[in-house]
């Protein structure tokens, strides 16, 4: 483990213990749950739920998630390019850096325009 990350690891463990410990400690202090069976029904504005809420929902949410994953991968590939861009400019590799980006963004743009025409971006 690189030394700089060890405080970060300790920090994240500390952060994780904070809600857990508070939940457990105050569970002992606060009054217990009392009430009839109606109290522990799901709250749906007074209408008794007839079915489980875990049913089928629109597949559009899947499309949103899928587009997000694909675009996120492209963004992750853009980050290394972005941080090296000025180094390349300093080495007079501007043509290389820019043309590389144009090919990459061109591929992305083709996909984007296709999605637009197909109506896949009308997400609601």
């Amino acid at each position, binding site marked *: 483990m690189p030394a700089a990350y060890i405080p970060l690891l300790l920090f994240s463990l500390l952060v994780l213990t904070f809600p857990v410990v508070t939940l457990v400690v105050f569970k002992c202090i606060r009054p217990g749950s009392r009430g009839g069976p109606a109290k522990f029904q799901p709250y749906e504005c007074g209408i008794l739920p007839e079915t489980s809420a875990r049913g089928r929902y629109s597949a559009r949410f899947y499309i949103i998630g899928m587009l997000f*994953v694909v675009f*996120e991968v492209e963004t992750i*590939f853009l980050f290394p390019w972005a941080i*090296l861009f000025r180094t390349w400019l300093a080495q007079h590799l501007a043509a290389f850096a820019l043309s590389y980006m144009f090919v*990459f963004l061109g591929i992305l743009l083709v996909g984007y325009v296709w999605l637009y025409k197909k109506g896949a971006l009308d997400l609601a």
Partner: protein
Amino acid sequence: MLDSVIFYFFAGIAVISAALMVTRRNAIHSAVFLITTLLATAGIFLQLRAEFLFIAQIILYVGGIMVLFIFVIMLVRLDVPLPQIRSGLQKWIALFVALTVGVEAGVVIFLARKAPGQGLLIPNPAPADKLPPNTEELANSLFRSYLLPFEIASVLLLVAMVGAVVMAKKRTEAP
């Protein structure tokens, strides 16, 4: 010392939650344990000084792909317990395959460790107390040596996007 403590910490989390993942009946619980495994693996990447891959794993795998999995589990009502093993035979086949592959690979790794002057006796890696800027290094390698595979990967993503949209769209247009 510290290195191995951290390794065993993450490796233990990874293996235990992977085992829990394949045995849970409820798909959402499986997804949660897979997330734990992936985060522990990200920790292992960090322990191996692969900084950029550590964060890429968190952003892409956990923040992206797993969210997609959870979405789909919620959308298609997969979150009810399902009958598990197809037949008794299936279990034995799985055990047999796992044992065969496991013993084989384990023996190979073990023997290779013992073989003098070759195999896994890899030249000493550079001790890295101060990290080299991993992202820059990776970016240089990616854009100098592996430019073509990289562009192909982005075409692959494009194809995947198109395929997925075509497949899911057909249903939503004609309900």
